[in-house]
């Protein structure tokens, strides 16, 4: 669809307070009934929307497990498990038992800070990455056992984020070494290899790549970076569908000159709206522009919200629910729930 016609505005629905330090990242559960947030205060908070008041409140605080900043969190596709990655070098797995969350397992192996965690589409695999430059792949065993499938070495620096492809078991990681690496398993021999590196030579980023996200179809990827640009990548969907697994990715276009400080987060909505949050305290929205198809689809700024928070914005996440809900997390310790609604 084309959003440019209908006038849209970003409405602040609610402001969630509770964390007393930076909020680093957010995760909606698959049904978007719960929102998990993790913070420099070493805790994870679970926020729930009470159907009656339809306002959000803190359902649970997950604490006393991680001894340092909790950097990232991810719900398993089933929505039963929540994985949290922390600077204390561990990854914790939480399960909703009865009405509260219990830490059912902690994965140790990284030498130092774990920066990100991600479940694959089927929920059978879990990936983590760390400043120790390695990316680990774990397999979920019955009884909340996790078995290390493989340790991927390849990045030359701190790995900032790992993200599974929405459809296939292909793993994407982005790093302080300015590259995005794509990892695939050949056969089912447990050995994973870096099949492609998107670096400067392929019109890649020129500084730390902080985050990446896929469009629902999984044939497009957005990456954001400290170089103040957002880049769109695409791949040949046909080959990809053909189940050959991996098909090479190419640079599609670069959106620059919008944010003027590090862009920490980019997320692609089901409807194809890219939201980006940055250290300039602003949130921006980009959509594919149909005009000028001559040289492939281009992306244009649809809407921007200056001063969305008082301080850096670390994470923006679209809910999968009906009305376009967006959650944003910031250094100011708050989380905001926004609605992207047509101007009334």
């Amino acid at each position, binding site marked *: 669809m084309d959003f440019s016609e209908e006038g849209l505005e970003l409405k602040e629905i609610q402001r969630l307070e509770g964390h007393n330090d930076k909020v680093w990242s957010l995760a909606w559960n698959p049904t978007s009934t719960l929102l998990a947030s993790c913070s420099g205060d070493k805790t994870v908070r679970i926020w729930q929307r009470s159907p009656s008041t339809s306002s959000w409140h803190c359902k649970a605080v997950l604490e006393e497990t991680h001894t340092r*900043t909790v950097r990232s969190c991810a719900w398993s596709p089933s929505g039963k498990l929540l994985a949290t990655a922390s*600077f204390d070098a561990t990854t914790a797995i939480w399960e909703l038992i009865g009405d509260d969350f219990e830490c059912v397992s902690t994965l140790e192996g990284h030498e130092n*800070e774990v920066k990100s965690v991600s479940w694959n589409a089927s929920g059978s695999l879990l990936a983590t990455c760390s400043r120790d430059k390695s990316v680990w792949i774990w397999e979920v065993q019955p009884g909340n056992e996790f078995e290390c499938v493989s340790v991927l070495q390849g990045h030359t620096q*701190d790995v900032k984020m790992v993200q599974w492809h929405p459809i296939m078991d292909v793993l994407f990681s982005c790093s302080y070494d300015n590259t995005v690496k794509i990892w695939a398993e050949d056969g089912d021999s447990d050995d994973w290899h870096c099949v492609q590196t998107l670096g400067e030579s392929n019109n890649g980023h020129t500084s*730390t790549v902080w985050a990446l996200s896929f469009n629902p179809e999984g044939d497009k990827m957005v990456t954001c970076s400290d170089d103040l640009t957002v880049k769109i990548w695409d791949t040949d969907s046909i080959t990809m569908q053909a189940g050959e697994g991996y098909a090479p990715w190419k640079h599609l276009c670069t959106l620059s000159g919008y944010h003027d*400080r590090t862009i920490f987060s980019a997320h692609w909505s089901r409807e194809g709206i890219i939201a980006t949050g940055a*250290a300039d305290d602003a949130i921006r929205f980009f959509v594919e522009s149909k005009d000028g198809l001559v040289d492939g689809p281009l992306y244009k700024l649809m809407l921007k919200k200056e001063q969305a928070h008082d301080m*850096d914005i670390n994470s923006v996440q679209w809910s999968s629910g009906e009305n376009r809900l967006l959650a944003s997390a910031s250094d100011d310790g708050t989380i905001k729930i926004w609605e992207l609604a047509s101007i009334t």
Partner: protein
Amino acid sequence: MTLGLINANPVVHAKKERVARTEDLHGDDAVDPLEIYDFVRDIRDPEHPYSLEQLSVLSEESITVDEKLGRILITFTPTIQHCSMATVIGLCLRVKLKHYFPPHFKVDIKVSPGSHANEESVNKQLNDKERVAAALENPNLRQLVDECLYSNEL
């Protein structure tokens, strides 16, 4: 009584203190380099028993402020090309400003051009807030930093 102590904190610095200030009671005073400098001048060097000011790692000129945009840029000059402590000094600056400065200011910290063997990497590291945050949770570093910040406050 050694020679070093005799010309410790020379007059030049002392003069800088408040002379510049003529507090006008009406207008608001914008945040200016001198003010920031006053915050950070006494930070102790991790290796020497002197303040960054005394070692002229910092000077008022090395600080620029854009009050409107709320941006601060601090450039410091490590004592030696390969100063392993450059990053620690940077951390100290960050922490000090974080605690004692309005949070909404965006702070960039760099080593002055050509003053460090691997300038780029130091700069990149100091301005990666995730790395900084992690660093400050590392007890060893934390202690080092605190010593630099508090040692000569009493």
